[in-house]
C-alpha cells in the first residue's frame, strides 16, 4: 500500500478521506478477477485489483483440483459441439445456449493462453496438455463413453492457474490492494462510480473511483455446515449487487459436490472418479448402477449427490453412518502419487486415511453457486436481470450468472467459466472504456458502507455471531441441501426471520477497526444470510425438480411452467420474483438420463 492515510476515528462518522482513482477497479483476485486485470492492464488501462485476503494467491480458485474443461483433443477425438451438448444437458437445459456456446469455444483459446503464460500443465507422452475424464463429459452428443476433456496439472489445477495469472499480473504491473474489504458500490441508478472499502489492515474507509468496476468475489458455500469452500466464501459481491438494486438469478441452484471428505466436506476431486475410482456403500456395492447405469460414477454431480444421500438415508452408509466410501486403491500407488497427490495428502492430514491403503470416507458437500449476478455474455451486469445494462458495472466468475451452468454445473466448467468470462469481461471493459466516465462522488457516497459497519459496532445486545452462524449453517444443511420439500423450506424461512431479529441484538466486544476479524466475520455473516434467503425463497418458489433443485414434493421437471430463469429482487420492503426466458439456440430440451 503506498497511499492510504490511516484513520483511527470512529468510522461511522468519518467523512471520506482516502479517495483513489483508477480506470478500472476489480474486486476479487481469483481466476475471473485476475484474467480481467490482465486484459485491462495489457491494453494500457490503469488497473487496480483488490482482495480482502492477504494475497491474490489466497483466493479460493486455488482449491480447484481436477482440471479445466476444453475440447483440445490431446488424446482422442473431441469437439466443442460435444462439450456444448454436455454442458447444456448437464444444466438440465436451463443454461443459456448462446452463452454455453461461447464458453466451450473460448475454452480452447483460454487453455492455450494459460499454457503460453507458463502454467505447468501435466503432459501427455507426446508433450501435449494432459486430459482426463470427468463427470458428464462424454463423446458424440451424449451417445458415447466418457471423453478425455479435463486439462489438468496433477490435482492442483486451480493452484497452478491462479499462480500463473498472478505471476502475469505482477509482470504487467497490475496494482494490488490486499486486505481491502469491499463494502458497498457507489451508484447512481444503473450507473456505477466505484466502490467503498474498509482497509482491514489499517482501519480506514476508502472510496475507489473507477470508470469500470468488476465484481469477481466468488461464492458463498459457508452458508452450509458441510462445505468444500473457504471460510472467506461469503457472498460479499452478491450482497453489494442486491443493495444496488440488481436482482440475483437462479439462486435456488446450488451444487453439492458428491465427494467431500467426511465430516468437514473438504473437496476430494471428481478426478478421483475420472481416473477410475469407485463409490461403494456399506454392502460393498457400486451403488451407482442403480442410479446411472450407463455412466456410473461419472454421472453429473447432482445425480451422484442424490444417489449418495439416498444410500445414506436408506441406512447403507458405512457402518450405518452418514457417509459412504470413495475407493481408489485399485489405481495403485503410482497413479495416486502422480495424478492425485494432494488428495492423498489431505486424506491423511484431515481424516487419517491413506487412500493407497484404505477407502476415503465421503459425504456430499456444499460446493458451487450456479446462480448469481445476471450478466450479458461479456460480463456486463443487467440492472433488470434481462436487458438493461448497469453502466460501468461488471461481474464474472462464481458470483455471476451468465448463465452457462443452468441448474447444474459440470465438473471443470467452473475454472473454465471464471477464466472465459473474466477474460471476456476484461476485453469488454477495454471496448466500453471510451464511452464510460468517472462519475462524481457525493457527500453521502460512503454512507451505506459506514452504516453497514456501524450496524454491527453499535449493537448493544448479547447474542454472539457464532450462535447466529450456527443457526444459519444448521438450517441450510437440514432444509436447503441435496433434497428439498415445502415443509423444510418453510422452516428455513422462519429460521431466517429469527436470524434477522437476532442480528439486531448481536454483540461483538472488539470495537477496534484495525484488523478486526470479528467485525469482518459479522459483516460476512450478514452477506451469507442475504444469499441464503435468496436460495431458500427461490427453492420454495420453484415447484419442480431440475438439476440441483430436487424437490421431494415436486419430483418431475416441469418445462411447461419452469423452463425459465428466476430473478430475485430484494429491498428494504421485501423481495419479489421476475422471470426470463432461456436461450435455446441449438438443442431442444429432452429427458435427462445417464
Amino acid at each position, binding site marked *: 500500500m503506498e497511499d492510504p492515510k490511516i484513520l483511527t476515528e470512529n468510522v461511522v462518522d468519518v467523512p471520506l478521506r482516502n479517495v483513489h482513482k483508477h480506470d478500472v477497479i476489480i474486486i476479487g483476485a481469483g481466476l475471473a478477477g485476475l484474467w480481467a486485470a490482465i486484459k485491462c492492464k495489457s491494453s494500457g488501462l490503469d488497473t487496480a485489483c483488490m482482495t480482502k485476503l492477504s*494475497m491474490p494467491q489466497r483466493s479460493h480458485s486455488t482449491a480447484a483440483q481436477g482440471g479445466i474443461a476444453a475440447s483440445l483433443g490431446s488424446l482422442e477425438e473431441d469437439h466443442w459441439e460435444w462439450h456444448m451438448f454436455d454442458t447444456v444437458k448437464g444444466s438440465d437445459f436451463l443454461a443459456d445456449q448462446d452463452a454455453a456456446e461461447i464458453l466451450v469455444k473460448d475454452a480452447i483459446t483460454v487453455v*492455450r493462453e494459460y499454457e503460453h503464460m507458463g502454467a505447468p500443465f501435466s503432459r501427455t507422452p507426446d508433450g501435449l496438455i494432459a486430459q482426463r475424464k470427468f463427470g458428464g463429459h462424454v463423446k458424440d452428443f451424449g451417445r458415447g463413453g466418457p471423453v478425455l476433456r479435463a486439462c489438468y496439472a496433477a490435482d492442483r489445477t486451480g493452484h497452478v492457474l491462479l499462480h500463473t495469472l498472478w505471476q502475469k499480473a505482477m509482470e504487467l504491473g497490475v496494482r494490488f490492494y490486499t486486505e481491502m474489504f469491499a463494502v458497498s458500490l457507489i451508484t447512481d441508478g444503473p450507473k456505477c462510480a466505484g466502490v467503498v472499502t474498509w482497509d482491514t489492515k489499517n482501519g480506514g474507509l476508502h472510496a475507489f473511483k473507477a470508470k469500470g468496476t468488476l465484481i469477481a468475489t466468488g461464492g458463498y458455500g459457508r452458508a452450509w455446515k458441510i462445505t468444500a469452500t473457504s471460510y472467506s466464501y461469503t457472498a460479499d459481491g452478491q450482497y453489494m449487487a442486491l443493495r444496488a438494486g440488481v436482482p440475483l438469478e437462479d439462486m435456488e441452484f446450488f451444487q453439492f459436490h458428491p465427494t467431500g471428505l467426511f465430516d468437514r466436506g473438504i*473437496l476430494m476431486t471428481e478426478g478421483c472418479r475420472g481416473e477410475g475410482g469407485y463409490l461403494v456403500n456399506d454392502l460393498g456395492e457400486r451403488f451407482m448402477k442403480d442410479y446411472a447405469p450407463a455412466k456410473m460414477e461419472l454421472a453429473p454431480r447432482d445425480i451422484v449427490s442424490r444417489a449418495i444421500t439416498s444410500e445414506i438415508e436408506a441406512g447403507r452408509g458405512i457402518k450405518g453412518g452418514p457417509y459412504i466410501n470413495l475407493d481408489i486403491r485399485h489405481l495403485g500407488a503410482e497413479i495416486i502419487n502422480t495424478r492425485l497427490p494432494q488428495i492423498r495428502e489431505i486424506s491423511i492430514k*484431515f481424516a487419517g486415511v491413506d487412500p493407497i491403503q484404505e477407502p476415503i470416507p465421503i459425504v456430499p458437500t456444499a460446493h458451487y453457486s450456479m446462480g448469481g449476478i445476471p450478466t450479458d455474455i461479456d460480463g456486463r451486469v443487467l440492472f433488470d436481470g434481462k436487458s438493461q445494462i448497469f453502466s460501468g458495472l461488471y461481474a464474472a466468475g462464481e458470483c455471476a450468472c451468465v448463465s452457462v451452468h443452468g441448474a447444474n454445473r459440470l465438473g471443470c466448467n467452473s475454472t473454465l467459466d471464471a477464466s472465459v468470462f473474466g477474460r471476456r469481461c476484461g476485453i469488454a471493459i477495454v471496448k466500453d472504456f471510451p464511452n464510460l466516465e468517472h462519475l462524481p462522488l457525493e457527500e453521502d457516497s460512503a454512507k451505506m458502507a459506514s452504516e453497514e459497519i456501524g450496524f454491527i459496532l453499535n449493537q448493544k445486545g448479547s447474542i454472539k455471531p457464532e450462535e447466529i452462524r450456527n443457526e444459519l449453517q444448521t438450517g441450510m444443511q437440514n432444509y436447503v441441501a441435496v433434497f428439498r420439500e415445502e415443509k423444510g423450506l418453510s422452516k428455513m424461512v422462519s429460521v431466517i426471520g429469527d436470524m434477522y431479529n437476532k442480528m439486531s441484538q448481536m454483540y461483538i*466486544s472488539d470495537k477496534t477497526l484495525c484488523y478486526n476479524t470479528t467485525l469482518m466475520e459479522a459483516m460476512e455473516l450478514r452477506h451469507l444470510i442475504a444469499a441464503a434467503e435468496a436460495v431458500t425463497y427461490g427453492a420454495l418458489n420453484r415447484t419442480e425438480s431440475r438439476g440441483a433443485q430436487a424437490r421431494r414434493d415436486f419430483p418431475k421437471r416441469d418445462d411447461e411452467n419452469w423452463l425459465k430463469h428466476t430473478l430475485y429482487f430484494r429491498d428494504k420492503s421485501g423481495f419479489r420474483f421476475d422471470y426470463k426466458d432461456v436461450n435455446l439456440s441449438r438443442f431442444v430440451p429432452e429427458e435427462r438420463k445417464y
Partner: protein
Amino acid sequence: MGNLYKLTIFRYDPESNKTSTSKYEVEVTESHWTLLDVFRYIKNNLDDTLTFRYSCGQGICGSCAVTVNGRSILACETQMKFLDSFDLVIEPLRGFPVIRDLVVDHSLLDEKVRAVMPWLVCKKDPESDKERFQSVENRAKLDGLYECIVCGSCIAACPTFWKNKTFLGPQSLLYACRFMLDSRDEGKNERFETLADKDGIYGCHTIFNCMEVCPKELNPGKAILELRKMFMNEES
C-alpha cells in the same frame, strides 16, 4: 473426556502499541480438531479479540502459518493430537512485522519474489493456436517446485534471513528455480544477474530449516543448490 490444552498466545495491540500474552484453556473432545478449530473456538466463545488469519481451512491457501512451540506450522491442517505437547506457546511467524496478535505483514514475500522475475520469460510469442510441447520428463523437473503456497514458513525459519533481511530467501529462490528449470523459459541470464549474489543463491548456508518446516514438503534448500550448479555450468 477430552484432552486439556493450555495455550499461551502472543498478543499485540496496534492501537496502544503494546504486547502481552493471553492464556486460554481448551478441552478438545473431537479427535480431528485442528489448531485452527481451537483458535476459532477461543474467538467464538472465550475472547473475540484474539486475531489470526485463515481462509481455506484445508492447507492450500497459505494464510494461517503460525509459530507453535518454536516451529512454524499451518494451523488449519495440524490436528491437535499430532502436536507433541498439551502446553502450547503460540507466536506469530518469525521475522515478519506484526500487524495484530498472530497476524503478520506478508508484503516482504511479494517484494522478494518479484525480484526473481517469477514468470515465464519468452523472447517471442508462441503460436496462438497451439500449446508448446513439453515432454513428460521436462515437466517432471517442476515437481516439488511449483506447489509452493507462499505461507512464509520457510523464510521465518531461515537463519540467514534472521541476520540479513535483504537475503532473497528460500521461498523466492524456490520460485526462481521453478522457472529456471522450465524447458519453455528463456530468462536464465537475466535472472542470474539477481540470483548469483550473496543476497541470492550464495546467501544460503545450507542449514535446511526451510525443508524441515515446509508444510507442503518442498525443499527450497535443494532448489538453491540446483541453481548454484546451474550457474557454475553456465560460467564454465
